[in-house]
């Protein structure tokens, strides 16, 4: 089987022509680095993505704190993860790196805060 992948690992965005059988990659061309082959392999076995979103922060100087996943999750679970994020409310202050959801849905990835939100002075 042949397919062209756009590698999303880095901004180079290499177009990789891959030849494969099932999940076994036979050859890749067009990638500027070895991460390209690893990406194609992962895409065939179990495509994964990280996502970014926001959680509601109460009593803060801003209504939202941004969050992201610290490790990729299976692509087809993204909307399940979003539902978990949507349910979460934090109390200010929050700091970058604070864990909002530990091991979300048992997928091996944490939802972490990516923006400092200070407590609103009354």
């Amino acid at each position, binding site marked *: 089987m042949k397919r062209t992948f*756009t*590698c*999303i690992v*880095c*901004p180079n*965005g290499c*177009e990789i022509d891959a030849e494969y059988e099932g999940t076994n990659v036979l050859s890749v061309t*067009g990638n500027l680095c070895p991460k390209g082959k690893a990406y194609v392999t992962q895409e065939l076995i179990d495509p994964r*993505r*990280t*996502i*970014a*979103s*926001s959680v*509601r922060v109460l009593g803060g100087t*801003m*209504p*939202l704190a*941004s969050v*992201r996943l610290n490790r990729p999750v299976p*692509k087809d679970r*993204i*909307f399940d993860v*979003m539902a978990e994020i949507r349910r979460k409310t934090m109390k200010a202050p929050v700091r*970058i790196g604070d864990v909002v959801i530990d091991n979300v849905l048992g997928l091996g990835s944490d939802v972490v805060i*990516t*923006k*400092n939100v200070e407590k609103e002075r009354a």
Partner: protein
Amino acid sequence: MIKRQAVIVGGGPAGLAAALRMKENGIDDILILEREHLPGGILRQCIHDGFGLTRFEESLSGPEYAQRFIDRANEAGIECWTDCTVLDVSKDKVVTAVSKVHGFLQISAQAVLLTMGCRERTRGALATPGTRPSGVYTAGVAQAYINLQNIMVGKEVVILGSGDIGLIMARRLTLEGAHVKGVYEVQPYPNGLPRNIEQCLNDYHIPLHLSHTVIEIRGRERLSSVVVAACDEHFRPIPGTEEEIPCDTLILSVGLIPENELTLGAGIELDPRTRGAFVDENCQTAVPGIFAAGNVLHVHDLVDFVSLEAEALADSAARYLKEGGLTPCPLTVVAGSDVGHVIPQKVSGTKDFTLWLRVRRPLNGVSVVVRQGGRELLRKKMRKALPAEMIQLSIKAQKLTQDADVEVSVE
């Protein structure tokens, strides 16, 4: 009048990186003026990840990337006045600004660093026909509402233009429950990075329609639909291809323009190709002591490169302050065939420098060639070259002479 060694206009990624590097170069008397309530610039609303891959070898979100610089600036004791808008920069480097706290300010600076970033092209500039309902937003404005203000802008969304912010917003809106019906791009190729086409559109099955544009906006109160059509190579709609798409929201991602009102006010000429100032290899404009870097100089696709460029500026600005001037740059850098723009536009010929350029159209199997007086200085082979991707070339001083201009072309 206040006196400062260096005033930095704008506390976004470029301004923060420049300030830190100035400090490392031993310049202590630095003041950043930032019009927003917090430093960090546009990164504050860019909550997606992918920032810092080259600098930190990590995939950070915009706020995290910015915070690393903010924390370091705080540690270094760099002064940053927020909620402070610069109204004017004069030729003799007097900066006029206003703020609630500091009132009306006039600051005389030995060096002024212009790091104001860029703004979005609007519907007005496109002159898209139709009505003027609510529900038409530029991608950056929609991003600010959604990521900073907790406000959802719409439910049924059409995106015009395939710039990176538009692609990022297609995914962001989808994750938040909106239905993104499609992205329409008038050019026959996408304007954003390939990885964003992949992870923001393809992952969510959002169709990208190349050589298509919005030819009419409908709805008197709220947007009710847009009419799209296929376009020919002159971007003219092809009759018979019109299609009406019901939607309540139209997001425009149709280009970024360096924000150079202050630059013009200082009497500095802009390059019509970059829409930023003409600068030399030191990021110095035609006015000695006024420098520019980052998106105000030319629109970048990666913040890592903005930081890099701002640091190069800071090295030069620090040298300018210590030595009272910089080596003259008499040689012109010419953008040749298929080169959209090139920075810097002037070089000394006695110093190593970095060339930043964009190609004019997508090309496969080409070489970027740098020549001086017909002599080849450098040749870089590229499997593909896209307008969306900035190309960086390092030129060594030892290869340069003093007698001819430098030309960059794609062949």
